C-alpha cells in the first residue's frame, strides 16, 4: 500500500513524459488526476485506519552488506504530512493550470517531486530517506530554472548550492551516525529503528549539528535562509507553493523525526541558542517583510517567519509546543499556498507582484481582494483560522521552557499584521493606479474577478483553513503518538543521563 502511494506519481510521471509528449492538455489532466487520486487514496487510508497506532509497514532487505534496508512505515505524523503534501501538490497543479504551457515536462517533474516527498515522509531507513530527499530536490531545480522570472536562474543556482551543501552536511551526519551507532552497539544498520533507538554515546553534538543544519536549510532557519527569499520570489508561484508549502515541511519533519532522537543532550544544550535564533529569525524576517515592495517577497519573508516559529517550538521540547510545531506545518502550508495561489492569479492578470504597480484592485476584483485578506489574516494568526491554533500552542508551550524567547517571538503577532496590512493596502486599497487599468494593448478584461476554477481552488483552501482553525483536534489526534514518543524519549534520555 505504501509503495502504491509513493510510486503511483513516480510511474505516472514516466508514463506522462513518454506517452503524452507534446500533448499539453492530456498531460495536464493526467497530472491533476494522479494528484487527486493519490490524495483521495491517502484520505481513504486516513479514514479506514480507525486505530492510528497500528502502523502499516513495508520492510525488505536492500543492500545487506551495508545494512541498508528498504523500509517504509506510516504513522499518524507521516499520514498528516503526506496528506498535506498531496493536497499542496494538487493545489500547485491547479495554480499552474493555465500559465504553464509544457505540461508534458512540468507535470512529470511535479509528480516526481511529489513522489520524493511522499517517500521522505514514509521512509524508515536513513539511506532510503536520503535517496527520496534527493529525488524530491532535483526536479525542483529544473522547475525553478524553466518556469520563473528572468532572474530565476540566479536564484535557482543559489538554491542548488545551498541545497547541495545542506545535503552534504546531512549525508556526513548520516554516515557518522551510522558509524557511531555501529561502534556503540556492534550492529551496522541504517534502519531508523536501529539508528534512532538510543542516544549516542560519543560525538553526539557534531552529528546532531550536521543533521540539523542539513534540515534547517530547507526550513529555512535564520540565518540559513538566504536562498529562500529570492527563490520564492523568482520561481513560478506553483513551484513556490511546493517549495514553501511542502518542501519546508520536509525539513521540519526531518528535525522532528531524526534530530530529536539522535542526541537529547545536544538538543537540550542547544535549546536556548536555537530558540533564540528562531525567535530572532521570526521577528527579523517580519521586519524585513515590512519593507518589501513586492507581494511575493512579503509572502516569502512571512513564510520564513512562520517556519522559524515551528523550529523554536521543537527546541522547547515541550508537549504543547511540539504539537504546535507539527500543526504549524499544516497551517502554514495551507495559508501560504493560498497567498501564492492569489499571486499566480494576479500574475495571470498582468501583475507580477510589484506593489507600486498595483493599488485599488479591490474595486474591480472584490472576490480576489476578500480572499487575499482572508489568507493574510489567517497567516497573521486570527483566531478561528488555522495558524492561530498552531501558533498559540507554540507560544504557550515554548513559554514553559523559555519565557524570554516565547514572549519575544510573540511580538511577531503585531509585526505580522503590520506587514500584511501594509502590503494589502498597497495592493488592494486606495485609488486605482492608472497604469494597472490601461495596459499597453489589452482590454480591461484582464481585471476580471475570480472565475470558477480559481474560486474552487481558493474555496478548498478556505475550507481547509477554517476546518483546521475550528477543529484542530482532527489533526492533533493522529499526531498524538508521535509527539508523546518524542517527548518521552527525550525526557527518559535526559533522566538516564
Amino acid at each position, binding site marked *: 500500500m505504501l509503495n502504491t502511494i509513493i510510486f503511483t506519481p513516480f510511474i505516472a510521471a514516466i508514463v506522462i513524459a513518454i506517452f503524452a509528449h507534446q500533448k499539453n492538455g492530456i498531460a495536464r489532466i493526467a497530472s491533476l488526476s494522479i494528484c487527486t487520486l493519490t490524495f483521495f487514496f491517502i484520505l481513504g487510508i486516513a479514514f479506514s485506519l480507525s486505530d492510528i497506532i497500528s502502523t502499516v509497514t513495508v520492510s525488505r532487505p536492500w543492500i545487506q552488506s551495508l545494512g541498508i534496508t528498504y523500509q517504509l512505515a506510516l504513522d499518524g505524523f507521516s499520514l498528516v504530512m503526506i496528506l498535506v503534501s498531496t493536497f499542496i501538490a494538487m493545489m500547485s497543479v491547479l495554480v499552474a493550470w493555465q500559465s504553464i504551457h509544457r505540461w508534458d515536462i512540468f507535470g512529470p517533474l511535479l509528480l516526481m517531486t511529489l513522489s520524493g516527498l511522499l517517500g521522505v515522509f514514509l521512509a524508515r531507513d536513513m539511506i532510503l530517506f536520503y535517496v527520496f530527499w534527493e529525488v524530491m530536490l532535483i526536479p525542483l531545480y529544473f522547475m525553478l530554472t524553466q518556469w520563473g522570472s528572468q532572474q530565476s536562474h540566479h536564484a535557482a543556482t543559489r538554491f542548488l548550492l545551498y541545497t547541495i551543501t545542506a545535503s552534504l552536511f546531512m549525508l556526513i551526519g548520516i554516515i557518522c551516525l551510522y558509524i557511531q551507532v555501529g561502534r556503540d552497539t556492534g550492529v551496522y544498520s541504517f534502519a531508523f529503528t536501529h539508528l534512532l533507538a538510543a542516544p549516542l554515546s560519543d560525538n553526539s553534538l557534531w552529528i546532531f549539528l550536521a543533521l540539523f543544519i542539513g534540515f534547517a536549510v530547507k526550513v529555512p532557519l535564520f540565518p540559513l535562509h538566504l536562498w529562500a527569499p529570492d527563490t520564492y520570489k523568482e520561481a513560478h508561484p506553483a513551484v513556490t507553493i511546493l517549495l514553501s508549502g511542502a518542501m519546508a515541511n520536509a525539513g521540519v519533519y526531518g528535525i522532528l523525526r531524526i534530530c530529536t532522537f539522535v542526541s537529547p543532550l545536544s538538543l537540550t544544550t542547544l535549546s536556548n541558542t536555537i530558540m533564540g535564533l528562531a525567535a530572532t529569525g521570526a521577528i527579523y524576517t517580519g*521586519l524585513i517583510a515590512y519593507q518589501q515592495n513586492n507581494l511575493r517577497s512579503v509572502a516569502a519573508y512571512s513564510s520564513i517567519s512562520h517556519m522559524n516559529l515551528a523550529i523554536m517550538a521543537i527546541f522547547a521540547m515541550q508537549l504543547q509546543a511540539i504539537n504546535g510545531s507539527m500543526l504549524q506545518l499544516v497551517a502554514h502550508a495551507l495559508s501560504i499556498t493560498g497567498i501564492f495561489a492569489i499571486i499566480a492569479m494576479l500574475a495571470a492578470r498582468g501583475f507580477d507582484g510589484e506593489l507600486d504597480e498595483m493599488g485599488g484592485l479591490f474595486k474591480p476584483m472584490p472576490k480576489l481582494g476578500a480572499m487575499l485578506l482572508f489568507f493574510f489574516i489567517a497567516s497573521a494568526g486570527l483566531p478561528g483560522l488555522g495558524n492561530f491554533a498552531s501558533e498559540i*500552542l507554540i507560544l504557550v508551550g515554548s513559554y514553559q521552557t523559555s519565557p524570554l524567547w516565547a514572549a519575544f517571538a510573540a511580538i511577531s503577532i503585531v509585526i505580522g499584521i503590520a506587514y500584511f496590512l501594509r502590503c494589502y493596502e498597497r495592493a488592494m486599497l486606495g485609488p486605482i493606479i492608472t497604469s494597472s487599468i490601461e495596459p499597453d494593448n489589452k482590454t480591461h478584461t484582464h481585471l476580471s474577478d475570480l472565475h470558477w476554477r480559481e474560486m474552487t481552488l481558493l474555496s478548498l483552501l478556505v475550507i481547509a483553513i477554517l476546518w483546521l482553525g475550528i477543529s484542530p483536534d482532527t489533526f492533533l489526534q493522529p499526531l498524538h503518538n508521535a509527539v508523546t514518543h518524542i517527548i518521552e524519549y527525550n525526557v527518559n534520555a535526559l533522566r538516564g543521563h
Partner: protein
Amino acid sequence: MNSLIWLIPGAPLIGAGFIILFGSLISAQICARMAALMVLISATLVLSLWVELLGQANTTVPNAILYHQALFSWMSIGDWKVDLSLTVDKISLIMMTVASSVGFLIHLFSINFMKDEQGERRYFFYLNLFIFGMLSFVMAHDLILLYLGWEVMGLCSYALVAFYYQKSHYAYCGRKAFVVTRIGDTALAIAIMVIFANFHSIELPQIATLIDAQQINPISLTLIGGLLIIAAIAKSAQFPLHVWLPDAMTGPSTVSALIHAATMVTAGVYLLIRFHPLFDQLPDLQLIIAFIGCLTAFFAASAALSQNDLKKILAYSTISQIGYMFAAVGVGAYGFALFHLIVHACFKALLFMSSGVIIKAYNEEHDIRKMGGLGQKMPFLRYIYLIGSLTLAALPFVTASYYSKDPIIAATYTQDFGFYLTALALLGALMTGLYSMRMYLMIFSGTPRSEIHPYAMSIGMKLPLTILAFLSITIGFIQTPWSWGPELLIPWLASDLGLPHLPHGAIDVTINLLGIAASLIGIGLACYLTPKELKHQQGLGNVAFLNQAWYIDALSMKWIVTPYYYLCSLCRVFIEKVVFFHVIESSITGMLITGHRSLSRSQAGLITRYLYFICFGAIGLLAYILMTIYPIHA
C-alpha cells in the same frame, strides 16, 4: 432557555456567514434587514434572560454563573484543555445587553442610513461579525474564546474604518486602528501564556478561584496584570495608545457608533473588570489604572475642546469617558464603571448616529465652524442631539451621566493620591461640559454658515434615536446616590464585584457639589465662548496644542513609527544585504573560488609535476596499506 445560549453570539455569526455565502444572490436591502434581524434575535434572547432572571429570587450568591453552555472541545493536549463554552454571569449579562440592544438599534438605523451605499453587503457582513465578536468576547468561559472575540473585533474595526477604501488615507486609518490595537492583542496573548504557565488553566472562573487562593507568586501576578493593562489601554484607546481612535473616524458614522458604544472600546474596561480579583490584590497596578484613567479623562477632554471636526470631538469624548471608566476600575468601583459604560453606550450611540445625519445634511462637511443653524431645519434632530450633548456634559439631576460619572469622581478620592486624581477628573468634567455644548451650539444655533440639505429621516432611523435619547435620561435613575432614591444596580452587582468605597460626610458632599459645579460651569462657559469664537473666527478651535491633542500622535510617529521603519531598513539593507550576502556569503564563495583556482593551477600540464604527484601518492598509499596491515604497537 439554557440550551439557546449559543444562539446569542451565534445568530449574528449565522447572519454574517449567510451574507458572505449567499449575499450576492439577494438584494442588499434584504441582506441589511436580515443582518438586523439576527442581532434582534440576540437582543431578544438576552432580554428574555433578564426576564427569567428577575423572576428568580436567588441572585445574591457570589460570582454565580447564571447560565452555562458547553460548545465543543477545541483542543486537548496534556493540561492545555480548551473546551469552548459560553457563560453568563451578572457582569457579562450587562455587557451582552449593551452590545446586543445598542447593536440592534445601530443595525436598524443603518438599514436606511447605508441604503444604496456601495459595499452595503460588506458593511452588514462586518457589522454582524462585529456583534458576534463582542458577544463571544463577553460570554467567553475561557481565554481562547475571549481572545477570539477580541481579535475578530480588531479585524472588523479595520474593515469598517477602511470601509471607503478607495481613499488612501482612510485605508491607512483602518490599518492604524488594527495595528495599534494589535499591540494590545500581543500583550493579551503573552498574558495568556503567563496565565497558563502559572495556573495551568485558561478557564476564567478557575483563574479567579486560584487568584483568590493566593498561591501564585506575586511577580507573575503583577506581570499578568501589567500585560492586561496594556491590552486594555490599546483596545480602549487610553493614553498613550489612544492614537488610533481619533483616526478611526473615517468609516461611516454608524460604524463609529458601534465601535464606541456597543463594542470594541468598552472591551478593555470589561477585560479589567473580568480580572478584578487579580487587581484587588495588586494595589499598585490599581493606582496605575486609576492614574491612566484620570489622566486620559483630562487629556482627551482638553483635546476635544479644540477639535473642529465633529466626529473627532466625539472620538476624544469617548476616550475621555472611557478614562472615567478606567478610573472607576482603578479605585475598585467596578459597578460604577459598568454603570457608566451603559450610560455612555446610550448617549454615544445617539450622538454618533445623529452626527452621521448632520454630516449628510451639510453635504459631507465635518467642520463644525462651517455648520450652524440646523436647529430650525431639523427640530427633531436638534432635541435628540441636545439630550445627547447634555448627557455627555452630565447635566446634574436630569441626565443619566450625572448619576454614573459623579460617583466615579467621588470614588477616585479614596485612592492614594486621591486629591490629584479627583482634581484631574473634575477638570475633565468641566471641559466635557464646555466641549459638548460648544459642539451643540455650533451646529444647531445661530445662522447657517453653509448650505443645508435637509435629510429626511425615516421612522426606522428616528425610532432608535428616540429610544436612545429616552434611555440617556432615564437610565440614570436606576442607581441614585440618595438614600431615598432607587439603588438597583450596585447592590445587585455587589455579590460579584463588591461594593465600591465612596468618601463620606463633608468630602462626599463637597466633591458632589464640585462635580455639579464643573458641569454647569462648563456648559455656561460654552454658552459664553462659542458665540464669541464664531464672531471673531478665533477661539478654542485655534489652540494648536490642544487641537493636535498634545502632539502625542506626532510624537508617536517620530519616536515609534519612524524608528520602527529604520529598524526594518537596518534589517533589510544592513544585516540582510551587507552582512549576510556581501560579507558572509561572498567570503565563503570567495574562499571556494580561491581554493578552486589554486587547484586548477596545479593542473598546469607539467608532466614532471604530475609524476611527482603520482610518486608521492603511491608512496603515501603504500605506507597507509602497510600500516593498516602491520599496525605499529607502541
